[in-house]
């Protein structure tokens, strides 16, 4: 949609690429109650989200389904109009200046295709040159660089509908970067990809961020993506940001618990030990959780050995999956999140 | 028998699940009903009687044709062709059901829904706005639903038949569209067969398509009485039987081909 006719602010050198202040998005949903009647329900998909991202940063955005991730990203890209609060992307209000902003950002939707389905991949790139009005030489340079970097030469002439998911994703990444966007929004870019393809995507994103200074907001379910790529991570649940900070901090804060997995000689009732609790029992195998500062692994193993014969054991360190899952479930003390001061205000 | 009743019910429910679509469809029926009614009224303003039709007949015809449009469903049914094309028909053959009767039962269930909700409402609206002619003879009120049911069978049998083209043709849609265009025109769906020039009218009644739409309309309008009425219903039954049998023969040929080629 053509944006407003207000003059755009001077771009200058912005240090803050993305900024949200008390942003809200409410939807009115009509639920069926019985055969005919409908009940009006207000859903607060985004309920007061505030954060800011510096230019050149690469930040992960994580949350369970329905948490408000996609809604936030849609507001950042100008697709949705916020119900409240203030949004600034590349210095402008996305909803009001959708088209102008679109020229300066790149978007990759993991589950939707931006390329032209029936046409050869290279035709999509050529069409996008015209859509984004990229000067021919710049387009050529970028395209050559990306084709080589992502090894796309073998399938440039193949229609998009015949590409594998990994090939298509490489095409989508290229499509999003051809016009030299300042900010890249990615929505589940590695979903469904095999290990090799995922590594390729991650490497590419890291390079774009490092060498071209592209600010990246990566929405994903795959926490390994975040671990590999982002120093900072935002967790959103029920429309609110429940964590905003570094990954190591998160693990340190909430990852103090480790797990000792013991295979006993015989099945036994859950072991009762000081400083450890049996989280799960499956036949002779038990998962014992204990806190680093209360008990060392060696002490726990000794304690178990006193009670039962151990056949085998392993120690599981908390990983980010674990930690995040626990935060979602409300196990972790969410109110104790420290760290990042969030938006400047 | 019980099984086929269940299948028919399923066919009914499939379409009952989308009331919004039905309402939209009724709206379309009403729009076209008005347009066609006005056009035919203008025709009969020039000439008060054409064949066995007068203006009131023509208007009644219009709204009956709109009501029969979805009930008889001449246009746009590819379900069997799709199953053949996708190869799913192979699994269907494993089932302890007669393939043709399965689809016939489903279609009758569907037709029941459409007769009630896409047949009656437009006609009622048309009856309010125009001077339609209702049957005086109670016998016709009985004969009409019978005729409609037979019309559905004839239509189904024909659709089933050309859908089977998918066994031999990769692009069955071309054949399907030609079949649908011809059947629509000669069924009397677009204009009453009574308005056709004589030679075309004779051709139309020699073809099975008239039994799909024009026949029940003639019954309702009371243009076929006594022996003629029986004859008309028998004609519909005849075409229904012939097309169903033809369908079975072609289906056997098709499945044989499938087996030979390995699907």
């Amino acid at each position, binding site marked *: 949609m053509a944006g407003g006719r207000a003059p755009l602010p001077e771009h200058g050198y912005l240090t803050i690429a993305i900024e949200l202040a008390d942003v809200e998005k409410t939807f009115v949903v009509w639920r069926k109650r019985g055969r005919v009647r409908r009940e009006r329900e207000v859903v607060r998909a985004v309920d007061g989200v505030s954060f800011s991202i510096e230019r050149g940063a690469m930040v992960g955005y994580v949350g369970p389904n329905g948490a408000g991730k996609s809604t936030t990203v849609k507001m950042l890209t100008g697709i949705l109009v916020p119900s409240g609060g203030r949004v600034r992307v590349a210095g402008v209000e996305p909803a009001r200046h959708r088209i102008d902003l*679109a020229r300066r950002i790149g978007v990759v939707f993991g589950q939707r295709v931006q390329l032209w389905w*029936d046409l050869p991949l290279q035709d999509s790139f050529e069409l996008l040159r015209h859509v984004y009005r990229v000067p021919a030489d710049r387009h050529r340079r970028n395209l050559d660089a990306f084709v080589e970097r992502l090894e796309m030469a073998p399938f440039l002439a193949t229609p998009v509908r015949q590409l594998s998911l990994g090939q298509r994703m490489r095409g989508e990444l290229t499509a999003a970067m051809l016009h030299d966007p300042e900010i890249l929004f990615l929505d589940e870019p590695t979903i469904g990809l095999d290990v090799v393809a995922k590594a390729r995507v991650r490497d590419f994103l890291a390079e774009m961020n490092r060498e071209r200074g592209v600010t990246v907001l990566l929405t994903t379910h795959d926490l390994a993506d975040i671990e590999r790529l982002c120093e900072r991570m935002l967790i959103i649940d029920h429309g609110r940001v429940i964590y905003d900070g570094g990954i190591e901090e998160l693990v340190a804060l909430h990852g103090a618990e480790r797990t000792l997995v013991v295979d006993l000689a015989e099945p036994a009732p859950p072991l009762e030990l000081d400083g450890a609790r049996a989280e799960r029992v499956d036949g002779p195998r038990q998962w014992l959780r204990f806190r680093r500062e209360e008990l060392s692994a060696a002490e726990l193993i000794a304690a178990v050995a006193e009670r039962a014969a151990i056949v085998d054991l392993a120690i599981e360190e908390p990983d980010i999956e674990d930690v995040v899952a626990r935060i979602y479930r409300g196990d972790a003390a969410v109110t104790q999140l420290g760290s990042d001061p969030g938006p400047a205000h | 028998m019980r099984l086929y009743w269940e299948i028919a019910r399923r066919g009914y429910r499939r379409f009952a699940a989308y009331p919004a679509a039905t309402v939209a469809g009724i709206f379309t029926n009403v729009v076209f009903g008005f347009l066609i009614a006005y056009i035919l*009224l*203008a025709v009969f303003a020039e000439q008060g009687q054409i064949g066995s039709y007068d203006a009131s007949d023509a208007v009644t015809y219009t709204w009956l044709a709109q009501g029969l449009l979805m009930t008889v469903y001449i246009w746009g049914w590819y379900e069997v062709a799709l199953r053949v094309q996708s190869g799913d028909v192979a699994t269907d053959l494993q089932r302890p059901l007669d393939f043709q009767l399965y689809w016939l039962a489903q279609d009758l269930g569907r037709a029941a829904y459409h007769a009630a909700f896409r047949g009656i409402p437009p006609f009622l609206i048309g009856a309010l706005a125009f001077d339609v002619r209702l049957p005086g003879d109670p016998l016709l009120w009985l004969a009409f639903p019978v005729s409609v049911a037979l019309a559905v069978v004839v239509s189904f049998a024909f659709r089933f038949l050309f859908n089977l083209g998918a066994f031999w043709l990769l692009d069955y849609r071309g054949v399907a*569209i*030609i079949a649908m265009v011809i059947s629509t025109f000669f069924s009397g769906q677009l204009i009453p067969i009574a308005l056709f*020039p004589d030679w075309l009218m004779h051709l139309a009644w020699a073809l099975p398509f008239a039994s799909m739409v024009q026949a029940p309309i003639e019954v309702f309008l009371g243009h076929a009485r006594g022996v003629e009425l029986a004859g008309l219903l028998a004609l519909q039954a005849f075409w229904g039987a012939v097309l169903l049998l033809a369908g079975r023969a072609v289906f056997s040929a098709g499945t044989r081909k499938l087996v030979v080629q390995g699907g």
Partner: protein
Amino acid sequence: MADTIALFGVYRRLVGARIRSQLQYRLSFALNTLGTTLISFVDFAAILVIFGRIDALGDWSVGEVAFLYAISSVTFGLADLVIGHLDLLPRMIRQGELDVLLARPLGSLFQVVSSDFALRRLGKVIQGLAVLGYALVTVEIDWTAGRAGMLALMLVTGVVIFCGIWVAFASVAFWVVDSTELANAFTYGGNYMAQYPVNIFGAWLRRFVIFIVPLAFVGYFPALFVLGKEDELGLPEAFQFASPLAAAASVAGGWALWRAAVRRYRSTGT
């Protein structure tokens, strides 16, 4: 101005890609178009049958009705070609394809319109031109420069009117789930109606297609001028020259509805 030229360039490229992709299957395309042409003739066959029984419909001879029919077919066919794929809008919305469009630096309607150009719809246009040929041969037209100009003009304004109607009724897709059928009642219904002289329809319907959805300006009014006929409805002669106005109104209305619809989509997310 430079912007508009650039936009046209983008349109040309997007549509060009679609056309190339269709022409790849040359035989299939040719058969499809032939098929569409033949099917459209069935519509006209109904008119011929009617005129086998009567001499004039609402004081319009067979040639004159054929003229109206032809104009309606050609203009509708061309509009269908350019904008008919708007019928797919409900599906696009459902599958979230609209979001992909909104992420690009182009207007949403522009992108939807330039997403296809189904050549097989030319079948209807070809059939319409054939009937137009028949009409021009059958009817004695007192040709003047003005009348020839009007014929050319009505072909253009007719397309624009249908396009405006198409956009207006497609916009309903943003409010009503699966609204294609509803829109069809007005687009295809409109095409059907414009094939016949407006004076045969009931008074309320006449007023509707003159003042609300300006279908009467596709064929009827300009045709009165070209064919040199009296307006039975007794409306001012100016109406016969008002098709450009009707076209402008149609586009304005359609565009306004589309914008309102997208605004709503961006507010409510559905």
